[in-house]
């Protein structure tokens, strides 16, 4: 008799347990988490400009655009806070192709900035390019100023 009670209890518990894993009121499985594919983009904001001391150069911004056209028009979907103390900037994004835009400013007086390829004192130079973000991976990329 005791064995039958135990078996009945076990079946009841199993049944209840099964019921807990049933679909939710909207028909979806509550245990199923909606995981969107995402990847990491790691951009090293680096520059090697000849003719200007490093202490007179500053990063201005680092932004991402969704297309080359948006990059050209200056329509970005995100920009980050840049710092001279930080080299790597990370973005967590859905997989796909993106276009980065990074700018540098030259703070030298006189013609030094012009000789280094800047338009002049407090002039900017920009770097841009295409980067690809892959699901579950980190894409490393370094800025290239010409």
């Amino acid at each position, binding site marked *: 008799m005791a064995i039958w009670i135990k078996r009945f209890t076990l079946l009841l518990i199993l049944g209840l347990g099964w019921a807990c894993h049933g679909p939710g009121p909207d028909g979806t499985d509550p245990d199923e988490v909606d995981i969107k594919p995402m990847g990491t983009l790691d951009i090293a904001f680096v520059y090697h400009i000849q003719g200007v001391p490093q202490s007179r150069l*500053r*990063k*201005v*911004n680092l932004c991402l655009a969704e297309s080359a056209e948006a990059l050209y028009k200056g329509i970005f979907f*995100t*920009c*980050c*806070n*840049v*710092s*001279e*103390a930080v080299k790597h900037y990370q973005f967590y994004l859905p997989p796909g192709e993106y276009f980065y835009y990074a*700018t540098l*400013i030259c*703070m030298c007086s006189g013609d030094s900035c012009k000789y280094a390829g800047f338009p002049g004192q*407090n002039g*900017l130079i920009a770097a841009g390019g295409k980067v690809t973000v892959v699901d579950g991976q980190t894409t490393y990329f370094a800025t290239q100023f010409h």
Partner: protein
Amino acid sequence: MRAIGISLFLLLILLPGLPGCSTDIDLFMETDPVPVVYCLLDPDSTVQYVRISQTYMIPLNEPGFRPSSEDLKIKERMLVYLAAERSDTRQDIFYGEPVENYPRDSGWFPADGGQVYRIRCSILPNCYYSLYIHLLESGRIIHARTRSFGTGFNIIDPEKVEGRTVNLYQNQDFIVRIKPVTWGSIYQTTLKFNYLELKDDKETPRSFVWPQPLLTQTDTSRSFIDQRISGERFMLEMSRALRPDPAIKRVPVGFDFHITVGGDDLRIKVNADNNAQSFSVIDVNDFDNAYGVFSCMSHRHVYDFKPSRFTIDTLALGPYTGNLGFLTNKQIDSLYHGHLD
């Protein structure tokens, strides 16, 4: 047998007398007030200030007792001086002079409460300083010792760079970076967001001041100390601080940062005060013969960092602040270069 009888007889006489001997013990006896001293040496100034007052009793039947300036004043002459221990054999002494009508903030204590002394002295780096207050009538000497900052206080970020803007919104935090200060170990950033309120063709400058939590860092070998200011939290705090008003339009102007560093002694004191497990704040005390704090403190203010276009649009259209009347970039451009949409 006779002795027992006498003892019983004495006991019977004494027992009724015992309750007559009991008196209430006064747990709240008036005691001598204890001096309270507050001095934070400022390495960026040539004048140091010492604030002196004293403890006071709160009457049991008056829990909301507010002390008068007389309650806080030490009623005896005193000599205040600062000793800079330049080396084992050299000590420079700087005497303090009383300051009348020292301006102070309003608050619980009377504005003219306490005594303030001014000491004309520039603070040397990495030097031990002793503060002495000699109470001349009672002959008591109050003393504390601290060490000045070893290095200058420099801010790495935010840095003023032409064209650089502040991104502060959901998923985009701003990080304040500070060069570690030797013998300085408690830091705090206060963010001030400036904006204009437009109502009936009238512009009124307004500010939202948001102090960040205290940051303790004793490791001076790091290349920088960072304090993260949450973008999402900024938007949330703005939504709590400002009231929506359909008649008011708002234009973001910029961010100011006020960064403060305190010495090791201040860090110990502040952390003891903030520690809920600490039974009494008097446990940690810098002074002999007084309560108070004697340490170093330095400030840096950096002003007018423009918000990024993303920050402006998030303020105008974001879920937290979208109802506060902030204008978008396009509307601001129209406002200042044409007509408002």
